[in-house]
């Protein structure tokens, strides 16, 4: 290809002539935002994102629609382009109607991925659930007990029945985590050598310590108390948060710190200056420790307590002695805690006195309710004006209040009703009207204040003092645990930036596109959701629980948690981590505020077995429509309507599954948003970030497509294929995209099975392998080695196949070895040169013989379409109609069984005067006369095909290796010879088995030894083995690798049968020993695809039964008394290479470089 030189952003670049600018930029690592461009389909230019400047008079041009020309000067990024792209994105977002992130997560001050962790619980992955929570919140067990549940208020299930019990689910995951791995410490990053002081061991300090320590910093944690926990420990009573549990969760964090120094008070035991000198950064999580008073006379009289001090004294083990009548003043959570604690200490009558009404109470509604259940009496619209008593308190004088206009806080201001004074006789008064920063502390350190709080940036925690950061109640005033945690994690992140010498910038808010708040939503949209009652949480009865301090909320059991998790509506988008639209929105920092998001109400279709279609999220790039049409040749999707009402729908508005859709998933792979998604294999689809991605080769057929297995918690969550790589260039078919069995599906065999008393029963490896060897040996002794046979599935790797033929020939001593699906009927290795898929794409003539490419080998059909696009002539010769026929130039249908005759006819037309053929004049003449009877139509078509073939410069013949026989292959080979195309073109045989070609090369064949050398004596082929079984001549069979495609013949029951299989199927009842095999996703090794290319298998996980297939074969050999040297697939490969004597012919080379 000729090249042209262009300049992109000042960088000189060589590009192929005729290529589009976008592809050239991307190939050179220059990112140009784009949504409607996919290298597999023709540029379309609808998204209007890939604008670049080429200095033309028409202004910016879309890169995807611009062909490179010599000397082109390209700028891909400047202010004007960014502005244009931003408006394009804003517009796309204005019609992209969906939730990126579930509203619960957004409502949570710590932004916990709630939908994700609930989905993990639903899957039974409780530890993964806790780990996911801990990415944002290191105290799930604690927070799961005390959180006011901001998330549940926004839960979309409110529109259906009651919100999901998120908080108790969080507690469940946290508790499970604590129980399961009490010694578990998350992986810390490598030590940075930076020293950090964290002052305060409450929620903020603990959180900061946790995330800083995980980043590899050396954390020293200071706390004033004798134990860590701060307000968690001293402000929350035992019955709500058991201290033993607190200790365990806090200890996990303490264990990550370099040092924990207790009993250390800032300003008394150390100063901020000391810290700044000795540490690289300081975090202040001082909290609001100081209880406020009301400023009444006799406030400090014996019998009057401050709420927080009262609670602390109880927790420290020296509760004050209370009388029988106690009043708590205040309406917050501390007031509730104090009142309920007073009850538990034995007070008979406990009042809560609050100057506003119930609606204005800042306490958690559930706490108010529980206090009431326990017998606490509420006196609303009441305010104490003085404390009565001489030496100790005897009562208070109160006034009644009424509510006036709303004040600055938005709550209605209480106004005294004149003359409403009354007295209340009491033994004790507890003032729980608020807490504040311990100002003494702050002032002694010359910390700057803002109102009554520490001055610090809410986003980064930066204080005016260099290197000093702060978060939590001290900055915000008294708030909740979850708010302190959320703030402290953000600040820890900022401190990490600071410690690494990077610019301290606030964490970017995650981009979110929203369907709207609960108020904005229409209940009708939720009418189709199934109602499921919220699982009630078991509580100890009020009458009993108020007598002691035991935890009364018993949490959810595992069963209850699984049930509750089912209630989650999975509001957030499954594609949130993969959505290109969202990525650009985040990168270009656009907002949906200005234009808003238009409500769309297309039904989400979920009736397809593999694909979910949500047109509300569609941005009309038409990638799906085009890939379905241009690459797949299917036309299942189309654009309907005009203007803003344009929408992608299945043709004729049919359900997708009935639209001609072949479930290839190409539309999903081309969709840049969450409009077309693969259905999750799990009931709750996450969203989850991939733990890892394993790249391997699909063995569902011999094409050899790349598969990327996206793993979450060691299970395959989605399958993709990378663009611009491998032979399939991102294309997959239904088999690769959706129908691969990785080994995690139901019916998996986990243990060997041995027939005992006529039935298969579980056994250990040793027993099973021993029984297999013993059985085979017995057959050999009784009937000779020729009564044994080995069949190998073409889904097994080269290494396994190579070892299997050694086992047959060297260990069992039989020549009866073959593939369960031998190509061309067996014993044939196609002659001539290998033809690559690439050559198909660039061929000028493609002849397809008896192969339904669109159905059986869609990725090969794509290559034919590529050739068609480039002007190739296509001929189809076959027994059945295929979807390529309508694009082909000549189509000839053959009557059943007449393929060979038709090929002879082709030879007759191909032959030029003087050319010798294997058929002889008479035969050729006969064929030409009889031809019309053999063909269903178009008898003249064969002559036309011959003409096209002869005229072609680069002809390729594609055949189905499982339909054609050896004789037919020989005729085609002769055709190539007659046409004399030299080194151009040739035959490409396609195989149904992922490693059919490899098994042939490895000598898994009745005739051929490894490397294709013919064996002097031939063994039985597959068909002969099956016949032998039926006739009782084969008495022992080893079937390696499932062999699902194989029908075991009647009469075979007599034979001793050993099967290596991954999944249970009823047919296995016939076997005597079943050995649990590894799937391809559990195998390391190589396969050879149809082209002859060597491709890698990489294991995604370990086989559940513990043994890889090669190891099972090795063990069998050993048990049979002839050990094979095979310690690893690598070792087998080394031997294989030697045995083959050379690199593989054609494209495939057993070169170490390709083994990766």
């Amino acid at each position, binding site marked *: 290809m000729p090249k042209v030189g262009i300049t992109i952003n000042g960088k000189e670049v060589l590009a192929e002539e005729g290529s589009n600018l976008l592809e050239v930029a991307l190939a050179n690592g220059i990112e140009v935002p784009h949504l409607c461009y996919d290298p597999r389909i023709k*540029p379309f230019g609808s*998204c209007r994102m890939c604008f670049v400047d080429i200095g033309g008079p028409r202004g910016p041009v879309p890169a995807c629609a611009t062909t490179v020309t010599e000397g082109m000067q390209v700028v891909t990024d400047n202010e004007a382009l960014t502005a244009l792209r931003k408006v*394009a994105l804003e*517009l796309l977002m204005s019609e992209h109607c969906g939730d990126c992130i579930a509203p619960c997560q957004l409502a949570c001050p710590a932004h916990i991925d709630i939908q994700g962790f609930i989905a993990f619980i639903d899957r039974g992955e409780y530890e993964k659930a806790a780990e996911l929570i801990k990415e944002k919140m290191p105290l799930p067990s604690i927070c799961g007990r005390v959180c006011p549940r901001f998330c549940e208020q926004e839960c979309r299930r409110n529109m259906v029945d009651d919100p999901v019990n998120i908080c108790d689910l969080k507690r469940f995951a946290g508790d499970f985590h604590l129980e399961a791995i009490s010694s578990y410490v998350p992986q810390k990053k490598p030590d940075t050598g930076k020293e950090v002081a964290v002052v305060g061991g409450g929620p903020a300090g603990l959180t900061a310590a946790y995330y800083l320590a995980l980043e590899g910093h050396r954390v020293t944690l200071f706390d004033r108390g004798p134990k860590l926990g701060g307000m968690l420990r001293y402000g929350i009573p035992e019955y709500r948060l058991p201290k033993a549990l607190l200790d365990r969760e806090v200890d996990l964090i303490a264990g990550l710190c370099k040092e924990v120094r207790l009993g250390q008070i800032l300003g008394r035991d150390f100063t901020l200056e000391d810290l700044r000198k000795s540490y690289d950064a300081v975090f202040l999580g001082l909290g609001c420790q100081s209880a406020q008073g009301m400023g009444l006379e006799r406030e400090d009289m014996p019998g009057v307590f401050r709420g927080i001090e009262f609670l602390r004294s109880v927790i420290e083990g020296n509760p004050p002695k209370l009388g029988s009548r106690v009043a708590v003043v205040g309406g917050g959570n501390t007031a509730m805690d104090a009142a309920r604690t007073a009850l538990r200490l034995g007070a008979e009558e406990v009042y809560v006195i609050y100057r506003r009404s119930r609606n204005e109470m800042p306490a958690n509604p559930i706490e108010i309710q529980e206090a009431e259940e326990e017998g606490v009496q509420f006196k609303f619209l009441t305010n104490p004006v003085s404390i009565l008593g001489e030496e100790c308190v005897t009562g208070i004088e109160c006034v009644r209040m009424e509510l006036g206009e709303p004040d600055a806080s938005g709550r209605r201001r209480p106004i005294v009703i004149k003359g409403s004074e009354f007295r209340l006789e009491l033994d004790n008064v507890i003032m729980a009207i608020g807490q504040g920063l311990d100002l003494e502390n702050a002032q002694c350190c010359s910390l700057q204040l803002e109102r009554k709080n520490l001055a610090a940036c809410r986003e980064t925690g930066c204080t005016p003092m260099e290197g000093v950061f702060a978060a939590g109640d001290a900055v915000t005033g008294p708030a909740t645990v979850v708010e302190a945690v959320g703030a402290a994690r953000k600040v820890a992140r900022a401190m990490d930036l600071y410690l690494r010498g990077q610019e301290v910038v606030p964490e970017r808010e995650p981009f979110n596109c929203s369907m709207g708040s609960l108020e904005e939503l229409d209940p009708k949209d939720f009418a189709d959701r199934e109602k499921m009652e919220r699982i009630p949480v078991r509580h100890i009865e009020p009458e009993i629980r108020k007598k002691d301090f035991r935890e009364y909320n018993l949490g959810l059991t595992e069963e209850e948690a699984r049930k509750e998790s089912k209630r989650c509506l999975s509001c957030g988008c499954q594609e949130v981590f993969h959505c290109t639209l969202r990525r650009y929105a985040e990168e270009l920092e656009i907002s949906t505020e*200005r234009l808003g998001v238009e409500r769309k109400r297309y039904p989400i279709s979920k009736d397809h077995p593999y694909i979910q279609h949500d047109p509300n999220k569609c941005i009309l790039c038409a990638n799906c429509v085009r890939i379905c049409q241009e690459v797949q040749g299917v036309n299942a999707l189309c654009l309907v309507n*005009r*203007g*803003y009402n344009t929408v992608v729908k299945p043709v004729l508005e049919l359900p997708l599954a009935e639209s001609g859709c072949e479930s290839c998933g190409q539309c999903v792979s081309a969709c840049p948003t969450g409009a077309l998604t693969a259905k999750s294999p799990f009931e709750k689809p996450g969203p989850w970030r991939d733990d890892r991605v394993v790249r391997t080769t699909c063995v569902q057929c011999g094409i050899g497509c790349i598969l990327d297995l996206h793993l979450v918690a060691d299970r395959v969550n989605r399958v993709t294929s990378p663009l611009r790589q491998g032979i399939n260039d991102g294309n997959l078919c239904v088999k690769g995209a959706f129908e691969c069995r990785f080994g995690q599906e139901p019916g998996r065999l986990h243990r060997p099975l041995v027939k005992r008393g006529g039935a298969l029963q579980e056994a250990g490896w040793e027993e099973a392998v021993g029984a297999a060897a013993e059985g085979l040996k017995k057959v050999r002794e009784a009937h000779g080695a020729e009564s044994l046979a080995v069949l190998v599935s073409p889904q097994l790797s080269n290494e396994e196949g190579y070892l299997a033929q050694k086992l047959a020939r060297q260990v069992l001593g039989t020549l009866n070895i073959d593939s369960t699906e031998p190509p061309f009927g067996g014993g044939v290795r196609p002659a001539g040169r290998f033809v690559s898929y690439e050559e198909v794409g660039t061929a000028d003539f493609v002849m397809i013989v008896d192969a339904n490419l669109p159905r059986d080998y869609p990725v090969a059909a794509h290559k034919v379409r590529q050739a068609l696009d480039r002007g190739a002539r296509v001929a189809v010769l076959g027994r059945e109609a295929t979807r390529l026929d309508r694009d082909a130039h000549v189509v000839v249908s053959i009557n059943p069984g007449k393929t060979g005759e038709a090929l002879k006819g082709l030879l007759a037309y191909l032959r030029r005067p003087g050319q010798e053929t294997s058929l002889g004049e008479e035969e050729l003449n006969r064929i030409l006369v009889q031809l019309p009877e053999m063909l269903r139509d178009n008898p003249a078509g064969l002559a036309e095909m011959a003409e096209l073939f002869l005229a072609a410069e680069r002809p390729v013949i594609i055949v189905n290796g499982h339909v054609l026989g050896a004789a037919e292959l020989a005729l085609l080979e002769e055709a190539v010879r007659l046409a004399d195309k030299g080194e151009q073109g040739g035959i490409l045989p396609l195989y149904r088995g992922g490693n059919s070609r490899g098994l042939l090369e490895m000598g898994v064949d009745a005739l051929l030894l490894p490397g294709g050398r013919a064996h002097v004596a031939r063994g039985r082929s597959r068909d002969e083995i099956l016949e032998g079984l039926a006739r009782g001549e084969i008495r022992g069979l080893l079937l390696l690798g499932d062999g699902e495609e194989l029908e075991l013949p009647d009469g075979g029951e007599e034979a001793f049968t050993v099967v290596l299989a991954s999944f249970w199927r009823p047919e296995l009842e016939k076997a005597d020993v079943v050995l649990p095999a590894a799937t391809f996703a559990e195998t390391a090794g190589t396969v050879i695809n149809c082209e002859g290319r060597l491709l890698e298998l990489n294991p995604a996980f370990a086989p559940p039964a513990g043994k890889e297939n090669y190891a099972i074969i090795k063990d069998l050999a050993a048990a049979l008394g002839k050990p094979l040297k095979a310690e690893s697939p690598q070792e087998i490969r080394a031997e294989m290479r030697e045995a083959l004597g050379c690199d593989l012919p054609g494209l495939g080379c057993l070169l170490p470089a390709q083994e990766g």
Partner: protein
Amino acid sequence: MHSAPYRVKVGLATCGIASGAAKVYSALEQALQGTDVRLERTGCIGMCYCEPLVEVIAPGGESYMYGKVTPEDVPRLVEEHLKQGKPVRELLIMGEGAETDDYSFLQGQHRILLKNCGHIDPEDIESYMAVGGYEGLKKALTSMTPEEVIEEIKRSGLRGRGGAGFPTHAKWSFTRQAPGKQKYIVCNADEGDPGAFMDRSILEGDPHSVLEGMLIAGYAIGANTGYIYIRAEYPLAIRRLKVAIQQAQERGFLGERILGTDYSMQIIIREGAGAFVCGEETALLMSIEGKRGMPRFRPPFPAQKGLFGHPTSINNVETFANVPRILHQGAAAYNTLGTEESKGTKVFALAGKVRRGGLVEIPMGTTINEIVFNIGGGISTGKPFKAVQTGGPSGGCIPAELGDTPVDYESLKKIGAIMGSGGLLVMDEETCMVDVAKYFLTFTKEESCGKCTFCRAGTYQMHKILERITEGKGREEDIDTLEELAEKIKAGSLCGLGQTAPNPVLTTIKYFRKEYDAHVKEKYCPAKKCKALIEYRIDPEVCTGCTLCARQCPAGAISGEKKEAHEIDQSTCIRCGLCINSCKYQAITVISEPRVTA
């Protein structure tokens, strides 16, 4: 010298038929049975405002034009004029004795293209040939090379009448030079601008001129197949084209070996299904190919890779209609008309608040004021002239202050409008410019093909904002947002539809910013058009209490005792305006007043 009989012509174009011309024609047919008066059909002469038109040509050749003729008028016409030779004065709008100034409608024009319309019989090729039809084709085929034809067109200065004004010879020349044997000529007759009907009138009134233009163009570029892409909503035009094609074939002007030369050409009619965007050339080609009509990006231009991948020249009806005239009379005669850059004449569909609306043809360079006042006879309502909109939804609003702007490609572009295909909408003081912008955006947002982001979502958003503004819910930043969106949509849209869609908004903001501000900031509509911002009020001094309005009101919003002043309840009033039309005492007025905004 024996006296020739009277000839009577009835305009039977769509506009005439819509006004009842067919009934007049049959009444005449009946009445004239047995007389020697020749009754003829013809196309539209352009005076759509007084259809049905009946022209009587006296034996001496004098022409008398009758307007707004009804079947009931026919006996009088026949009796008094045709039998007694006395023209019926009350109905006469032109010709000796006419008492109206309608003659100035035609007098102000310069009719080259429309010369035959309203005069010849469009369904009779003889009638076309009698006025020089197919002479241009003969000249081109028998005495000129294709290059010479292109050169002649170049000398004429003809530019594409589809709106953009691209030099016709250049398009032809590119197509001719593009490699490939198979080439196509395509006639764009997908006239979709609201209010534009020039192409229809030409096709209905003079279809052969378009065929002849296509034949000459086909010869020039080397195409043997021509397509006419015409909207299915023009059944009469389609029928007349079919008749014309048939006749041209019979006469040897179309088909194999035309006029005995080596040149052959077939013309195929393709009916469009009503998508405005199919007037865009690449979308039009997709539609002919049987695909969803969506524009694609250019390059490659149709001249390089057009219909079915072959070089294609796409020209508009009016452009083709110019071609035979240029060939027949010579480029020199043609290019004396018009301005330096814009040669020839342009046909406009004059509509809106103008006294004489219809089809007018003027030399390029005629000013807007000349069109509105001299030809159109000024504003129909008597209110002050406010603006004109040229070019339909792709064009711009030109304020009355710029009425002296000459109508040519460059001058219009300079002030933010475009020539477009020739719609010219006249607006008076009572027109709300925000409402006008909204009207055009309603059209473009519906007619966007949905392919590209800016056009699809951008026009929708602009419309949404305009709607908000006219409803009195405009926000402070809305005008800025409109301007930013407009700028980006112009720069970023894939095809002409999107690139020009913001023009009505941009020009109205530019020239009528105060009106936008009034809507947004003070929540009132100076033109008193926007329903949400107006009130109907009854003046109690004037109201007689006749109760008519109360009885007419469909919302029951008007109350009052008989013979006492009535009152309108603003919360129930739907602002339909029925009351104001029913009031005989002009007691009801529309009010829109600036409101203090919070």
